[in-house]
């Protein structure tokens, strides 16, 4: 690894002060992505500011009935927390679908949001990549793009966001709490990650001198009718080709509320208000689910190797909504899709 300086942040204010003082520094928490990227010379920080010891490790109920999750809570602690397992099982399942137990033990909640794409070309410093080297070009568009995006792409970038947890957080309408030199603010989850556009080097709307302090879940957790289905090249410990988070509120077999988000297909968790609206008042059946899938995949465009993702996503959406409607979420250990 390249040499870098190391400093520990004592509290959030100290972390903000330290990052503002050194624009080539980076925060490090779990390190599961950043250290890997440093080893590949994709990230070259001159200083790492260790925020892993900041007192942001609690999971607490809010006064409005939601849950506030500290940014340093490890992924396993979050997935196994009784309140999350019981009230937000969609989030627990999504977290447990990602990475390995070793990495989930290390990775922080805030860091999960900030992990970077696993596009082959982003990692390969011998090739052009607009996300890594703005203006150098996109190697994936005409390259090996089987794992790349089919929605919300641009001529500059067809990378996907790799997180499973974020797909559930998007479906649950979470809020991101951040702090910076100007004080604290909140960002709606849908506005946190960006589409690539002409600035694919920017993954999120977090400012360089800001830090994530917490994630807030609203009271509604859809614990009765939900499912997270992840389709990948092996049965465990692989990134999603397509993943679906579905949550329904039913009155008998009529849909009263629907949430639907896709992973593995775009630069951010992919939702569509039209797709969710199309389900309202409908009978929870395959016809309605297929219509919602059409809405959610509206404008999808393949780049050759990844054309299969569009059909795969359509079928996965129908399956996942069916699982949610039946109250039989996809099992994490029995991989058969029922």
């Amino acid at each position, binding site marked *: *690894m390249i040499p870098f*300086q190391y400093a520990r942040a004592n509290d959030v204010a100290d972390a903000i002060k330290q990052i503002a003082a050194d624009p080539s520094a980076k925060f*490090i928490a779990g390190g599961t992505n950043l250290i890997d990227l440093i080893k590949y010379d994709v990230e070259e920080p001159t200083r790492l500011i260790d925020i892993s010891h900041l007192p942001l490790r609690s999971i607490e109920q809010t006064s409005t009935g939601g849950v506030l999750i500290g940014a340093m809570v490890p992924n396993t602690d979050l997935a196994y927390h009784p309140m999350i397992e019981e009230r937000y099982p969609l989030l627990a399942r999504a977290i447990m679908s990602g990475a390995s137990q*070793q990495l989930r033990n290390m990775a922080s909640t805030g860091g999960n949001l900030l992990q970077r794409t696993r596009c082959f070309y982003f990692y390969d410093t011998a090739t052009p990549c607009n996300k*890594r080297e703005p203006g150098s070009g996109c190697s994936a568009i005409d390259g090996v793009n089987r794992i790349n995006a089919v929605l919300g792409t641009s001529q500059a970038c067809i990378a996907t966001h790799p997180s499973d947890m974020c797909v559930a957080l998007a479906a649950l309408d979470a809020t991101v709490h951040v702090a910076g030199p100007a004080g604290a603010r909140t960002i709606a989850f849908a506005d946190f990650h960006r589409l690539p556009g002409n600035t694919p080097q920017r993954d*999120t709307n977090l400012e360089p001198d800001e830090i994530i302090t917490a994630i807030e879940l609203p009271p509604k957790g859809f614990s009765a009718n939900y499912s997270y289905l992840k389709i990948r090249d092996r049965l*465990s410990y692989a990134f999603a080709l397509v993943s679906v988070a579905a949550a329904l509120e039913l009155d008998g077999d009529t849909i009263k509320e629907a949430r639907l988000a896709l992973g593995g297909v775009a630069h951010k968790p992919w939702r569509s208000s039209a797709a969710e609206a199309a389900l309202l008042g409908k009978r929870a059946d395959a016809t309605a689910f297929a219509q919602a899938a059409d809405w959610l995949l509206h404008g999808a465009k393949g780049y050759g190797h990844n054309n299969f993702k569009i059909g795969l996503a359509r079928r996965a959406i129908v399956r996942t909504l069916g699982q949610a409607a039946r109250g039989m979420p996809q099992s994490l*250990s029995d991989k058969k899709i029922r």
Partner: protein
Amino acid sequence: MARSGTAKRVTRTASVPEKIPIRLTVNGNQMELRVAPWTTLLDALRDHLDLTGTKKGCDHGQCGACTVLVDGRRISSCLTLAVMKEGAEIITIEGLARDGVLHPLQQAFIDQDAFQCGYCTSGQICSGVGLLAEGKARTPNEIRELMSGNICRCGAYPNIVAAILQAMERS
């Protein structure tokens, strides 16, 4: 938590930093060492403390060969900076046996013939010890899922699952 956004190259002007003194408890022994900030826990164990039972497989968190227990939890030591674990309690494969008696999972790996070349084995066993402590896996399918971070290129998986089941039943 990495800062998001600009990945543009920065002209590197930082001088090579000093080594940093850290204290670790490794297999019950207090250790003091001086490491560069970029020294991984894996390299600190192998190159500074001569604990070469922990293996370097991929060095990118993808294979699990470097799995050790930090404060009771299994982690990938190749993606962990030693300086960040100041004061932590580390258990490696060398620290599992007690008074010359193998850990029940070590014995189970022998009983069930759960390895061939052995390169992944210390990571498999440390990961399995972490799994047993978590208490989440009960069935073979659940063991497979929660052991998926440990790759065995010899393909000893069925016997690894059998070994973990054996240790689970006897604990």
